[in-house]
C-alpha cells in the first residue's frame, strides 16, 4: 500500500485521474504510519470526519468556508488585489468640488472635465473607464478614506499592518487571511485539505501566514510551476534509515509530497480551465488570467491574491499613475469578462487595497510622498454598489499634512468576513482581535442562522487551535455518560487525563493547559459508551 507511486510511469492517462486516485491518498496517510501509535488512536482512517470534528464550533461554526470543506462546491471566492507602493487615492477618486484639493496640487490635480463623473461630487480617474461602467451597473463599491490610527508611513511596516490587521503599535506574525483559514482548518498541518486554501500569484507574504504555517501557497509562474509538477512525483516514506538523517529525509519527503499534491490539483485546474477573452499585456492582467483559469478549471480555492506594483509615485506621477490605473481597470474588466455569468461569478468578490494613500500636497518633483488614508474598491455582482464611509476631509489634516482616516481597514475586513464569508461575530473577532463595525456591502447579507447546523456532532474540537497557553476541548452528548478524555504527545506518551467520570448532557468544555509542555502536536481521545473520537491540537508557544 505504501510503495512509491511513480507518476511518470503511469503514462498519459495520469492527468486528471490523480486526484481521485485512492493510492495517492493512501500514500499520504502512510505519512503517519511510521508513528504506528496513531493508528491505535484511530486517527489515520478518520479522514474528512477529522477535519469536521476539529472545527472549533464557537468561532467558525457554520461559515460558508467550512461548508465548502464539507465537500460542497466553494460558495464564496475573494480575489485580493494589492496596489503595492501606496496608491494616490485623491487622484483615483477625485473630489472635483473641493478647492483644497486643487490648491494642494497645482500641477497634479485633475480638472473636473478630465474625470469620469460618477456622482455630483466624485469623478474617477479617466483611466478607470471600465470601473465607471461597473459603478453604473451597481457592481462597484468604493469605501472612502480607509486607514488606521497613528499611521506608519513605511512601506514595509504599513504593508505588514494591512496584512496582519494589527494596530500600528502592535507586531503580529500572522496574516488576517491566514488566521481565518487556520480557524477554518484547525487540522491543516496534520490533515492538509486536497485543494490549496489560498493561492497567491507572485511573492509570498504575511497575509496568508497562519499561526502554525503558511496557509496559502504562492505560485509565481504557472508554466514553471506546472513544469515542476510534470517532473515531480511522490517519494516513499518507507525504508528510510533509522538515523537522524533518515528522520530529516522523512520530513523533507513528506513536505515535498504535500507540495506536489497541491501542484497536481493546480495543474489539473489549469488544464481544465482556459481563458476565453484576450487580456491586456501587463503583469496584473497576466496574474488575473491565471486566477480565472484556475477558477474556471474547478480549483476549490476560496481566496486568491494578486499584486500590481509601482504605486510609489514620488516623482513625475501623472503619466505613471494614469498607466497603473488603466492596467488595473482593464485587467479587472478582462477578468470579469472571462468568468461566465452564473453562480461562480455571482460568488466572486474582488477587493483592492494599498498600504497607504499619498500626501494631500504634491511635492517638489511633481509627485506625492507617502500618506495615510485612501479609498478601497470592491467589485462583484453581489455587491451593493456605491459609496461607503465618509468623505476625506482635506481641511482636517494630521501634523504631517495627511488625511485622517474615518473608516478603519479592519472594519472593511470585518464586513467581508461576516457579509461575504458568513462568519459570526465571535468568528470575526477571533480573526481580527476585536469587534469592528460592519459596512452593509452586500445585497442580501448572509445570515449565519440560515445555514444548516452540523448534525449530531459529538466531538466539537478544541478551541483555540493552535493555542499558546490554554485550549478547551468541547463535546456534545445526548444524555449523561461516563467519559474519559486523554491527551498524548506525538510520540504516544500520555500527557494528561482531562476527565474520567460522568459528564452531563449537552455541550461540555474541558480545559487543557500547555504549561511545561514543548510546542508541537498533541492528540486527544474522547471515549465513552456512545463516543470514540480523536482530535489533534497544536501547542504554539
Amino acid at each position: 500500500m505504501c510503495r512509491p507511486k511513480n507518476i511518470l510511469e503511469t503514462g498519459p492517462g495520469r492527468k486528471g485521474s490523480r486526484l481521485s486516485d485512492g493510492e495517492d491518498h493512501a500514500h499520504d496517510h502512510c505519512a503517519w504510519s511510521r508513528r504506528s501509535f496513531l493508528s491505535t488512536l484511530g486517527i489515520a482512517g478518520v479522514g474528512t470526519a477529522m477535519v469536521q470534528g476539529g472545527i472549533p464550533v464557537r468561532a467558525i461554526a457554520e461559515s460558508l468556508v467550512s461548508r465548502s470543506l464539507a465537500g460542497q462546491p466553494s460558495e464564496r471566492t475573494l480575489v485580493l488585489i494589492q496596489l503595492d507602493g501606496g496608491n494616490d487615492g485623491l487622484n483615483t477618486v477625485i473630489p472635483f468640488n473641493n478647492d483644497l484639493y486643487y490648491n494642494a496640487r497645482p500641477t497634479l490635480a485633475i480638472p473636473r472635465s478630465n474625470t469620469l463623473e460618477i456622482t455630483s461630487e466624485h469623478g474617477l480617474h479617466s483611466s478607470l473607464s471600465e470601473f465607471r461602467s461597473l459603478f453604473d451597473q451597481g457592481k462597484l463599491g468604493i469605501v472612502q478614506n480607509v486607514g488606521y490610527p497613528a499611521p506608519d508611513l513605511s512601506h514595509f511596516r504599513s504593508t505588514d499592518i494591512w496584512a496582519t490587521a494589527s494596530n500600528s503599535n502592535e507586531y503580529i506574525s500572522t496574516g488576517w487571511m491566514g488566521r481565518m483559514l487556520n480557524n477554518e482548518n484547525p487540522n491543516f498541518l496534520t490533515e492538509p485539505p486536497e485543494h490549496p486554501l489560498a493561492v497567491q500569484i507572485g511573492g509570498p507574504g504575511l497575509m496568508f501566514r497562519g499561526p502554525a504555517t503558511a496557509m496559502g501557497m504562492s505560485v509565481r509562474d504557472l508554466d514553471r510551476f506546472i513544469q515542476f509538477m510534470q517532473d515531480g512525483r511522490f517519494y516513499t516514506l518507507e525504508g528510510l534509515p533509522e538515523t537522524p538523517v533518515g528522520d530529516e529525509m522523512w520530513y523533507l519527503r513528506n513536505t515535498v509530497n504535500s507540495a506536489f499534491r497541491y501542484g497536481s490539483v493546480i495543474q489539473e485546474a489549469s488544464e481544465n480551465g482556459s481563458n476565453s477573452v484576450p487580456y491586456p499585456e501587463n503583469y496584473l492582467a497576466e496574474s488575473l488570467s491565471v486566477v480565472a483559469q484556475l477558477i474556471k478549471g474547478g480549483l476549490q480555492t476560496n481566496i486568491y491574491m494578486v499584486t500590481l506594483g509601482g504605486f510609489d509615485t514620488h516623482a513625475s506621477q501623472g503619466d505613471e499613475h494614469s498607466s497603473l490605473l488603466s492596467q488595473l481597470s482593464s485587467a479587472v474588466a478582462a477578468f470579469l469578462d472571462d468568468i461566465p455569468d452564473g453562480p461562480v461569478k455571482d460568488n466572486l468578490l474582488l477587493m483592492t487595497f494599498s498600504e497607504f494613500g499619498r500626501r494631500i500636497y504634491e511635492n517638489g518633483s511633481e509627485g506625492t510622498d507617502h500618506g495615510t488614508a485612501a479609498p478601497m474598491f470592491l467589485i462583484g455582482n453581489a455587491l451593493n454598489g456605491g459609496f461607503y464611509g465618509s468623505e476625506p476631509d482635506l481641511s482636517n489634516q494630521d501634523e504631517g499634512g495627511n488625511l485622517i482616516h474615518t473608516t478603519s481597514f479592519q472594519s472593511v475586513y470585518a464586513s467581508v468576513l461576516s457579509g461575504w464569508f458568513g462568519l459570526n461575530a465571535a468568528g470575526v473577532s477571533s480573526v481580527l482581535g476585536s469587534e469592528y463595525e460592519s459596512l452593509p456591502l452586500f445585497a442580501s447579507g448572509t445570515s449565519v442562522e440560515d445555514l444548516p447546523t452540523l448534525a449530531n456532532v459529538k466531538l466539537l474540537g478544541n478551541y483555540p487551535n493552535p493555542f499558546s497557553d490554554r485550549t478547551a476541548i468541547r463535546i456534545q452528548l445526548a444524555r449523561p455518560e461516563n467519559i474519559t478524555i486523554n491527551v498524548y504527545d506525538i510520540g504516544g506518551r500520555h500527557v494528561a487525563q482531562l476527565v474520567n467520570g460522568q459528564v452531563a448532557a449537552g455541550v461540555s468544555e474541558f480545559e487543557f493547559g500547555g504549561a511545561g509542555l514543548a510546542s508541537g502536536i498533541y492528540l486527544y481521545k474522547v471515549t465513552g459508551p456512545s463516543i470514540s473520537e480523536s482530535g489533534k491540537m497544536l501547542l504554539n508557544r
Partner: protein
Amino acid sequence: MSLPDPDKNAALQALQIEAGLEAYDSALTVREARHLLRRTSFGADPTVVPSFVGRVGSEVANEIVDEAVGFSLPVNPAWANTNAPGYNASDEEWQQYTDNTFLWLDEYRRDWVTLMLERGLIEKMTVFWHNHFVTNQEMYFHAQVAHRYISVLRSHALGNFKQLVYLIGLEGAMLIYLNGVDNAAGSPNENYGRELLELFTMGILNGDGEKNYSEDDIQQIARCLTGWQFDWVGLHPYFDNGRFDSGSKTVFGVEGTYDYDQLIDLIFEQRGQEIAQYICRKLYREFVYEAPDETIVDSLASTMIANDFEIEPVLRELLASAHFFDPLVIGAKLKSPLEMKVGFFKEVVAPLEPDLVQIIPWASWELEQILLNIQSVAGWPRHRNWIDTRTIPSRWGVIDWMVWVGEEEDRYSLDPFMNAITDPTDSQIAFKFATAVVEALFAPEISDLDIEVITTPFSGDLNSNPIPSEIANGPEYRINLAKMFLSGIPWYEWSPYNTELDWVKRLFLAQITRLPEFQMT
C-alpha cells in the same frame, strides 16, 4: 518583537554519538572531505575535494581555520565614507542619494556573496555573526552603516567574542535598530539591554534552567548603555555625555556607576560561564546539528573560558574533532536558502561573474533570507523551520534559474564541473556522469535516495552498441540515473563536450536538485 512560528525543530534530540572532541586522526574519505567543505564553506567545491582526500581530518580542519584566521579585509566600497545629504538638502539630492543607496546595497550584497563563493569559513562566520547580532537595514537605511557593521563582524569573526560584543553595541546599525539612540538618562529604552542579554550573550536561562537575569537587571543595564547618539549626516555614532546616566546602578547584585565599557566587563565577569555555553551551543547548531549535545557544549565552553572568549580555539576544537566527522552528523542538517544557493554555485564550479553571482542576492527576496535585512531580531529560521510547501517550490524555482540563467550562447560552462567530478575521457562517462553529479551534490548516501525506477530500456541500437557489462551489472540507481540523464539520447551519441547537448546536463541538474535530499547538508 514578532511571535515565533511553532518550532518544528523542538522535538529533535541530540545525536547519540560516542566520539567526543578528540582530534579526528583518520584519513579523510571523499564523503568526509565534502562534509568538511559543506559545513565550513557553504558547499563542497569539487576542485578542492581531491586535495583533502586521504589526509588526516584534524589537520585539514585546522588548515581551514588557519585560512579563516589569515583572511584579508576586502577593499572598502568607493562610497564607504560618503556623507548622507544634510538636513537642508533638496528633494532632488535626496532622491539621487536614495537611488544610489539601493544600488550600493545591491552591489554590496553581490560582492559579499562573491566573497562567500571565493572563500570559506571566514564568510560563513561573518554570516553567522550577522544572524547573531541581528540588525535590519530597513531601520537604519544607509549602505555605509551596513558596511561598517559587516566589517566589524568580519574583522572579529574568529577573534574575541567579548571584543565583538563590545564593538557591535557601538555600531550605528545596532544603535538604531535596537533603539540605543533613544536610550537616555531619565528616559531609558530597554530594547538593546534586553537583547544584549537574551539573544546576544547568555539567553534567558542557564544550563540548569535558572534565570540568568531579572527584569531589574535589564532596567539597570539600559541605564548603563545610555549616552550614545548617531550623526545622521556623517553616519557615525558618538557619545553625548549629557544623555548619559552617571548615577549608581545595581547589575547582577553589584553596585557601581557603570558606563558602557564597565558594563561589558561586568557582564563577562558575572556571567562568563553562561555566555560561553550559550555561544558554544549556537556554534554547535551552526556546524554540527540542530539539537545540541550538552556534553560537547560544556567542553567547548571550557575551552572558550580558558582562552578568554577567543572564538578561534573553540572552532578549531569542534571542526577538527571526531564528533564533527561522525557518520550521524553527515547530511543531518537542512540548508538555509543561502547555503543552498552559494553551495550550488560552488559545487557546480560556476564562474565568479558579477551578473551571475547577482542572482543569489536577487533570489533572496523570494526565499526570505535577505542579507542585511533580517526580519526578526531572533534571526532567520533554522533547519526544518525553513522548509514548507511554499518554500520548497520556491527553492526549486531559484535553482532552476541558477541552472538555466542566460541565453544559450552566454550560459556559464559546466565543463569545469564535469572535469572535476568525472574523467570525461572515460568511455563509460555517459553512464557514470549522472551518478557523479548526485554524489557531488548530495550529502546523504546515494543508496538511501528514492531514485526513480525507469523500466524502459536505454534508447538506440543496443545490439551494435551494447551496455558495458560493468554498468549492466552495477548498482540499479546508476542505471536509472543514466537513463534519466540521457533523456532518450542513445548513450553512444552523447558526448561530454558537445555544446549542442549542453541542455542535457542542465536539464539533469534542474531535475535532480528537486530530490528532497538536495536540501540536506
